[in-house]
């Protein structure tokens, strides 16, 4: 057994991190409430975007934890706690979702029974898209995620004290079960919260699209926290730029993957040009939304692709910090682009900026809260030494 806990000492995270979290959260909340009273519908949709932002980073991080266990990765062990802290927003989702659940009627077209009664297509899918079943699905999905979060994190924390290798084995099994469960639940989430905003539209790849966005956003958030904490000396001293390289490379891979999925969806609908599908993209190509569509391609693909292409760029802390913030911004645009153009006559408003502050502030606060409770390095993990020894060949 290697002695690796000597070099790591637990420190409290800097005060200004929690201060920043409170400021962003408070400002977002106050301005958001003001926004709610000026334009209720818009504020609700913005809250939906903020909720999906938190959700995607939380569940994307939990997936990355599961992938580490199943894939047997070593390099990510020294930074796994950062990922765990980011995934802890999952336990707050059942509370955060309440304002949305109470306003299903305002957000979703299909929740109006009088509209559905007159619409043959909506009537055909009303056995899936109805309020009762929708609420059951929402909470069932959140309960399943909460359960897997609880079990995986409990084992990981327990290992800090016991150093029991059996816990790694348990988490590998849990993770293997979680991954297919994740695939189903994230698809349900994407269809319910985003695709059904335009209930006539359908696309089989949509779950994969939301999944790819979630993973790239989670990677960006992880990288940002890792680089920040490493610079301030909170991480294990043996964590070096080689570890960052893997994060940069994964970001690069998922930027490409997202673009591939987005292109596949667009290309096939554009080429076939069937009115039952193409109207969704046409909505995003008129009334000024076309500029946002172009911005999405540039922000979510071209810029990060160019910035991360070269090998040295993938391990440059400065570059990674910049591009991580950039990708998080792009992820926000992506969600905005999925939600807002569904509403006729909507265009950019100041409310759109203030509500996301709630999401950013909340993620920082939850991170800070969790960081107080656990070590920032999984000191009992048997793969920690191998992970610290990792070098880019």
């Amino acid at each position, binding site marked *: *057994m*290697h002695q690796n806990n000597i070099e790591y000492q637990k420190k409290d995270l800097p005060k200004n991190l929690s201060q920043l979290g409170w400021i962003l959260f408070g400002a977002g909340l106050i301005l958001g409430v003001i926004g709610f009273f000026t334009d209720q519908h818009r504020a609700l949709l913005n809250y939906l975007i903020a909720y999906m932002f938190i959700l995607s980073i939380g569940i994307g991080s939990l997936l990355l934890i599961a992938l580490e266990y199943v894939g047997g990765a070593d390099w990510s062990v020294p930074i796994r706690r950062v990922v765990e802290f980011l995934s802890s927003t999952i336990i707050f989702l059942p509370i955060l979702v309440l304002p949305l659940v109470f306003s299903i009627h305002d957000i979703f077209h299909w929740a109006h029974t009088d509209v559905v009664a007159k619409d*043959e*297509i*909506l009537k*055909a*899918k009303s056995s*899936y898209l109805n309020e009762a079943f929708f609420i059951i699905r929402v909470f069932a999905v959140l309960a399943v995620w909460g359960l897997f979060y609880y079990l995986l994190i409990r084992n990981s924390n327990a290992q800090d004290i016991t150093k029991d*290798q*059996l816990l*790694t*084995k348990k988490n590998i099994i849990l993770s*293997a079960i979680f*991954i*297919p469960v994740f*695939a*189903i639940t994230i*698809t349900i989430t994407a*269809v319910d919260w985003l695709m059904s905003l335009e209930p*006539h539209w*359908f*696309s*089989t*790849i*949509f*779950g*994969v699209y939301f999944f790819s966005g979630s993973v790239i956003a989670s990677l960006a958030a992880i990288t940002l926290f890792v680089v920040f904490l490493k610079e301030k000396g909170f991480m294990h001293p043996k964590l070096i730029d080689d570890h960052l390289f893997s994060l940069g*490379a994964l970001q690069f891979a998922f930027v*490409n993957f997202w673009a*591939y*999925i987005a292109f*596949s*969806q667009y*290309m*096939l*609908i554009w*080429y*076939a040009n*069937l009115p*039952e599908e193409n109207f969704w993209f046409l909505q995003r190509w008129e009334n000024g939304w076309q500029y946002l569509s172009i911005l999405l391609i540039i922000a979510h693909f071209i810029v990060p692709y160019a910035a991360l292409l070269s090998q040295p760029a993938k391990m440059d802390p400065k570059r990674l910090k910049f591009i991580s913030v950039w990708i998080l911004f792009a992820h926000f645009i992506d969600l905005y682009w999925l939600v807002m153009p569904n509403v006729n006559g909507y265009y950019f408003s100041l409310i759109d900026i203030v509500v996301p502050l709630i999401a950013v502030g909340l993620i920082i606060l939850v991170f800070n809260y969790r960081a107080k409770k656990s070590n920032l390095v999984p000191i009992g993990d*048997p*793969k920690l*030494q*191998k992970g610290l*020894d990792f070098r880019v*060949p």
Partner: protein
Amino acid sequence: MNIDYSQELPVVEGGLKQAQIEELVAKPLDTKPDKKFLIAISISGSLLLIGAICLGLTFYYGIGLWGNNQPVGWGFDIVNFVFWVGIGHAGTLISAILFLLRQRWRTGIARFAEAMTIFAVMCAGLFPAIHTGRPWLDGYLMPYPNQHQLWINFTSPLIWDVFAVSTYFIVSFVFWFVGLIPDFATLRDRTTSKIKKTIYSIFSLGWRHSHRNWQHYEKAYMLLAGFATPLVLSVHTIVSFDFAVSIIPGWHTTIFPPYFVAGAIFSGFAMVVTVLIFVRKIFNLEHIITINHLEKMNKVILATGMMVGYAYAMEFFIAWYSGNQFESFVFINRAFGPYAWAYWIMVSCNVIFPQLFWIKKIRRSISIMLAIAIFVNVGMWFERFVITVTSLHRDFLPSSWGYYVPTLYDIGILLGSFGLFFTLVILFTKTLPVVSISEVKAVSEGAQPSHNGGHH
């Protein structure tokens, strides 16, 4: 069995020394063909001959010999094409993507999988070339300013296929050849035969195993891996476009590109497992292509099998969710119509049987994994059959409903493609090192410096 997660598992087992690895891999090249080899090649050669005869008759009489009819205008030709392109996906995934992911275990199987990729793409390329029954017109697939001023239809995904598949073939071939250069040099240095020495010298391009050689080699290998990685995705994406850009219910659906790629990796890995089980046994490579290798490949089969299952489920769900009666009809017709037998073969082989790989014992049992891998191969062939035939056989008007039955010539040509594939595989085992000698040496115990002073 308890694993110590703090330790690295050895990739090469049995404590093989460097010289032993060389000896083991080069042995089939140093010995004369034995009886087993001759039996194997005569079987595969016979299949190839059957295919050649059927093909010759097709060229003479035309494709009226095939089962294609109205409304099923696409039959075995496209099914076999997509099947073989799919088989050709494992090699480049193993050699390029697993290389970029720093998976050391890939070294033992990469060479063989890459060779299978090249042969499978050759088999695939056969079908577009013959599907008109007039192979002498294939030149028109290339955009060149000919005297008739005929220009290819750039908006057709079938022509994108020509470029995608030929690019994939070229890059896979170059990748494979670059990997072979150090091994050619090793063989050149060992051999005593003058003819062999000349041949190996030419192909080793003056390799001297020098530090400088290796530096350039590693850079080139990494760049090629970077180029090959998007190709793994692009080829089957384009193949899926053959179907998905159309507006036929059952073909036009947005999940097709990633679903086809997952399916291709799934079938490719199944084929690699099927063949490697025999190769490691016949050539005594059990210490280099270990049970651990096979177990990892079975895990990939399990994962990609579930991705394919996800796509089946998603297609079904959205066909209903869309509220489009034509979409729903096609999918209900697939599962319960006249081709239900093919659909359920596909589902059970691709989604249900691979679930057995959740059990560790089965992942490590040679006989059961062979059975499952063969099931997957059958299932993936049927997947393409289901997509092609069931979507076409009942057109929008019930007056143009039909049923497709392949003729003996269709089956003969399919057998011929297997004959071509296995003939090339068997010849490969006798002429080139089936395992990368230099790469396996690099991952054998004691080959690399270790940060904690090694753990031997």
